[in-house]
């Protein structure tokens, strides 16, 4: 079976950013990159589209605010009205702290859950291509190879400074 991926491991973040930019300029599509820490500018060099995560974050935040305001108004106006310091039952300033807290809570937990769902992360998940050292000190670039293209991609990666290049079949 023909290799599906070509993997190159780089020694530095500047090397992987430069390589990703050059490969994209040559029209190669980059499957993914694995690095020990977030590399500034790599997302741009890889041509990653903007994540849809912020929209989820905003929606979760709004739902947190709606939950907080809704529950407080229901409890203090409808279900159990109480006179506190002669203030109106629906006095808005008193609702804001809880509203703020639940906005942050829903937005934060919702964003993390969405991130896990979008990236397919779970406790049993193993790291792809971990044998190339992306959990240690290597910056790993993975290209998807069309049939017959793999050996050319390997040469390209080597010439761009990858110190370890390997063709990997589907996994």
């Amino acid at each position: 079976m023909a290799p599906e991926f070509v993997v190159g491991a780089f020694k530095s973040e500047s090397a992987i950013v430069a390589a990703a930019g050059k490969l994209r300029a040559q029209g190669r599509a980059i499957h993914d990159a694995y690095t020990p820490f977030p590399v500034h500018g790599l997302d741009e060099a890889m041509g990653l589209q903007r994540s849809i995560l912020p929209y989820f974050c905003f929606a979760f935040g709004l739902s947190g605010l709606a939950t907080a305001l809704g529950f407080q108004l229901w409890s203090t106006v409808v279900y159990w009205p109480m006179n506190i310091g002669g203030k109106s039952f629906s006095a808005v300033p008193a609702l804001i702290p809880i509203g703020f807290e639940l906005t942050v809570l829903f937005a934060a937990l919702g964003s993390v859950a969405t991130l896990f769902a979008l990236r397919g992360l779970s406790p049993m998940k193993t790291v792809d291509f971990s044998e190339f050292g992306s959990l240690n000190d290597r910056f790993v670039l993975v290209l998807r190879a069309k049939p017959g293209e793999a050996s050319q991609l390997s040469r390209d990666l080597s010439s761009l400074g990858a110190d370890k290049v390997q063709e990997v079949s589907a996994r």
Partner: protein
Amino acid sequence: MRRDPGLMTASESSALKAVAAIAAVVFALAAYRSPVHGGAGVLIAGVFFSELSLGAMVFMAAQSVAAAGWPTLFRRVPEAMTGFLPVGAAATAVLVLFAGKLYPWAAPGASAWLGDRAWYLSLGAFAAVSAVGWTAWIIFARKLVGMSRAQDASGDASVTRRAKLVSAAFLVVFALTFTFCSVDWLMSLEPKWTSTLYPWYVFAGLFEAALAAMTVLTILLHRRGFFPELNDHHRHNLGKYLFAFTCFWAYLWFSQYLLIWYSDIPDEVVHFLGRSEGAWRYVFWMNPIASFAIPFLFFLPVKRKAAESTLLGGALFILCARVLDLVILVEPTISARPSLGLAEIAALLAGAAIFLLAFDRAFASAAPEPAKDPYIEESRHFAGV
């Protein structure tokens, strides 16, 4: 001694000088007719433009202490913003002349009802506190800007490390001195009212205003050919700063309002009764909308923070909102109805013109970029996450 054209051409600069002179004459006449509004004008304009200088210093110091490299490319902008500091000190001196009209505690016979506060709320203590503050700030500004400019010639990388120590000392000194100054200049307009959150609140506005002004000046200079490497990532960071500190300001504004509204104690609530009730209420409730809600929603998307025109527009809007906030702190204490006299408007105009002239002079008197700073290359190739 211009090495480069600065922000403005010679004709623009002389036009601004004319604006400053005319505004100063109008101010003098208006202040003569109504000294209370004259005092309010000096206070609002003096504090607002001093805040831009002081906030620029806080920005520089915070970046230096955090060893942040990204703003090095345009660091001469906050450095030049400190050029207004001596004018701000002079404005405080003029304020002392108006104190009797503006501050109830400076009126004759005030010590009778001031009680234990009389010793602090006096012209002597007021002048002493401001003098200590201004002296410290001007010395620190001279030192920080001077070290950075000396590095241009010497190329000595250890200057950056020593600047870190000076910056750390400045942040501590500034926090203490500005706390007292905000109490004296603004909170003492209502001598019997106190709020422990007030200095924080004023500081939040100060930093937000300075960030907005720095953003505007950086973009204008970029449009005139300075900082060719200024990119979307620098602008995105500036936008994030503006966004974050609108939230910080709103947090403090609301914290102060909520606690006083909830406990409803007559001594405390008097500050808000004159603003959130009565004729001022529409202006008062406009403040959280203009200072928080609009900039918050506007700056949510990345594109608006990173694109030059939207960042410039948003920063200018925030600057206007900062003036509104300051007007709401000052004006209700001298007028029961929403008012902004001719004196205040003339003082703000004169302040803006003088601030820009002082900025331009300071900016043109040094190289536009700190070329020998160890972080300059990092800043020129800055890419965010």
